[in-house]
């Protein structure tokens, strides 16, 4: 069976459409018959990734590859990158503004949440460079 690929552009600071990509991904996975517990893990990961691109980056893409045995999520943006990844991965660490917090985000739980949902998790970033997060979830 060929794998199925989905890709979504995410605009920076586009709060009005926040979550649309994750919602579409969720619907697509449901149509493909993926079980609901797996879908939920994918949804949390893509939603947090989508919010991070909107809140913290200059914009980017979220790609999802569905295989028979696993689902891969690739979130990429065009910068400005993360200076200290170890710090960013800590629960509660956030550089989000108070405006973002008022929307219910910026609790510093996004990257830890993504990792928690993942069977395999990797993040690549440095100051002045793109951030790439890759997640694999086994079905």
């Amino acid at each position: 069976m060929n794998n199925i690929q989905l890709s979504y552009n995410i605009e920076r600071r586009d709060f009005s459409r926040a979550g649309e990509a994750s919602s579409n991904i969720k619907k697509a996975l449901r149509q493909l018959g993926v079980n609901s517990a797996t879908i939920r893990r994918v949804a949390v990961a893509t939603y947090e990734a989508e919010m991070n691109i909107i809140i913290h980056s200059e914009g980017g893409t979220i790609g999802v590859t569905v295989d028979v045995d696993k689902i891969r999520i690739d979130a990429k943006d065009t910068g400005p990158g993360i200076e200290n990844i170890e710090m960013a991965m800590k629960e509660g660490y956030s550089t989000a503004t108070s405006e973002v917090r008022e929307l219910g985000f910026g609790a510093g739980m996004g990257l830890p949440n993504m990792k928690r949902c993942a069977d395999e998790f990797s993040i690549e970033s440095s100051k002045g460079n793109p951030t790439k997060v890759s997640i694999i979830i086994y079905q």
Partner: protein
Amino acid sequence: MNLREVKQLLDAEVLLGEESLDKEIKTVFACDLMSDVLAFVEDKTILLTGLVNPHTIRTAEMMDINAVVFVRGKTPDEETLKLAKETNIVILSTKHILYTSCGILYSNGLCGANLVTR
């Protein structure tokens, strides 16, 4: 317990989903921080919150939460309601504060949501 009983106990107004009030619920989660919902909620539950915006609905959608109760008499704007309609989420609004709402539901036998331990 079903949503109709929740509505009665909280003296709540149904803003959306009158036809779905027979849905059974087993547990409740309450908070204003959407990342906490995404971090901890494991089962199908209902969400009590004072955070009224479309992100609340998106978060509920991601977690398969099919009813949201807005507390402190807050009413959502049109955009929030539109999204809730699209995603089939029942919306209730109660005058009670979060603490009181939780107390009422808890003392009537509804437990807290199961949390993720993985």
